């Protein structure tokens, strides 16, 4: 018999009030605006857009505000909102070769065409606190000039350049690094399959295994950064047989083109920021394939290179079947990776454990009591039998 228990409405209403208060914090401190979060917490917004699988920086900022900065809760809000929207269709595949570059680095070639463009990165900062960001008068001055740029700006010998005056803009054409190796025939070619088929959409159709690469890439694009980072790390540490180099990371703006039915030609919807990572992996060759470099690919919304790098590591690991490698480790097993990378699903199943399970638990309680009772009776019976046996 299923017993429904009701109650708690008043408590739930009160908790809604309380969470609003907790979210607001000390009323003496000014409230942050959604625009401030969008502009000043952009990397957080990028993560919410990726894991919420919806590109909209305003909504990501709102989600972060509403969720008190809880990224997974914010991604959940994005996913829930997305389900209320009609889908107009699919874009033309974005062309990352025509990206307006803000950052582009390669660990494989020093002197590549277009150059190494560091862009905005924390890579070369000292990870010292910049207390100047605490803003108030009288607080300590910034300690890490590599972040704030406030110290030493007027010192003689300042090597900084003034972009507005001194610098020419970047080359319009920045070749993708794997294509340079591809021209030599040393890189696994990357061409669309016969007929350039529409990609599988895991939001519309159930996934089956083994999963094709389009399914895997979609799942990872919306997957949890931390989970993919851990898996990528496991590949590097030996739980996967790859030896990766960053062929290229690029960050910048890409146009999104869409062909509306009523127009019949592609319209430019505007630009989105993307991060792309091309991981280059050594491959000793197999019976059918000559020794060459193989690719791992990562693409993500916003500036999110840790995510794109992790994705590209796991993408290569998941290609093990195509290269005749044994799938011995978690990062090589598509079912394991795809079923556990979605943090909204994972959080839902883990966190549902805190919801009432009173009836289930009552059942288990009675079962344990009965087993213990039976065990005690059995032991008592054996004890009665024992003395006779001893004599």
């Amino acid at each position, binding site marked *: 018999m299923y017993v429904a228990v009701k109650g708690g409405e008043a408590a739930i209403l009160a908790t809604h009030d309380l969470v609003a208060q907790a979210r607001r914090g000390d009323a003496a401190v000014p409230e942050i605006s959604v625009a401030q979060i969008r502009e000043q917490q952009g990397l957080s917004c990028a993560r919410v857009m990726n894991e919420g699988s919806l590109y909209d920086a*305003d909504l990501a900022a709102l989600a972060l505000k509403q969720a008190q900065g809880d990224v997974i809760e914010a991604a959940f809000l994005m996913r829930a909102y997305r389900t209320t929207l009609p889908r*107009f269709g699919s874009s033309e*595949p*974005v062309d990352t070769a025509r990206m307006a570059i803000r950052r582009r680095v390669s660990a494989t070639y020093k002197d590549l065409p277009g150059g190494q*463009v560091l*862009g905005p990165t924390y890579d070369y900062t000292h990870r010292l606190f910049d207390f100047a960001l605490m803003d108030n008068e009288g607080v300590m001055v910034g300690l890490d000039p590599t972040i704030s740029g406030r110290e030493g700006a007027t010192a003689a010998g300042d090597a900084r350049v003034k972009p507005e005056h001194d610098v020419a803009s970047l080359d319009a054409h920045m070749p993708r690094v794997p294509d340079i190796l591809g021209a030599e025939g040393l890189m696994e070619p990357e061409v669309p399959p016969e007929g350039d088929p529409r990609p599988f959409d895991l939001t519309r159709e159930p996934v089956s295994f083994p999963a094709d*690469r*389009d399914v895997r890439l979609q799942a990872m694009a919306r997957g949890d950064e931390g989970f993919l980072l851990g898996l990528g790390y496991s590949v590097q540490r030996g739980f996967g047989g790859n030896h990766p180099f960053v062929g290229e990371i690029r960050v910048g703006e890409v*146009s999104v083109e869409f062909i509306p039915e009523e127009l019949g030609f592609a319209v*430019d919807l505007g630009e989105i920021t993307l991060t792309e990572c091309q991981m280059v992996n050594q491959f000793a060759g197999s019976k059918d394939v000559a020794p060459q470099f193989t690719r791992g690919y990562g693409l993500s919304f916003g500036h999110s290179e840790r995510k794109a790098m992790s994705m590209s590591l796991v993408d290569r690991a998941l290609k093990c079947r195509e290269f005749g490698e044994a799938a011995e480790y978690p990062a090589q097993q598509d079912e394991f990776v795809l079923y556990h990378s979605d943090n909204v699903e994972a959080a839902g199943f883990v966190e549902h454990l805190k919801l009432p399970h009173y009836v289930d638990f009552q059942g288990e309680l009675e079962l344990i009591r009965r087993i213990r009772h039976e065990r005690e009776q059995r032991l008592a019976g054996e004890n009665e039998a024992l003395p006779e046996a001893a004599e």
Partner: protein
Amino acid sequence: MAVLSRASRAEIAQLVGTDVPRHDILKAPETGTVMVEGRAGGAGRRFNLGEATVTRCIIRLDDGAMGFSYALGRDGRKARLAAILDARLQRAAPGAALHRAVDALAERQSAARDLASRKAAATKVDFFTLVRGA
């Protein structure tokens, strides 16, 4: 349309002006999504990267000119104004003031792109090699 989709609502409102022409709304501003596709390795198999919000609107001016607007984001007001502007641009003679104003907007967008590119170029690495024992 590429210029208008990148323009702010304020910029479009300024181009339309205070004297908004009479128009029928054929498709009211509607926000939905477009699934953004990528290609594995940049040039290979297509895959679904994730969706993006898009708002569209279709209007018809009294003189019969149809105007379309499709742009990223959720700004319905901007979509309607952009659709009106699109219709008026189709009726305006080449070189008309409205076309010149849109050209000026395109130039501002291009200048902003150029500045962003220069800022990135300022972080370009100049390698030099230290020759030991020379």
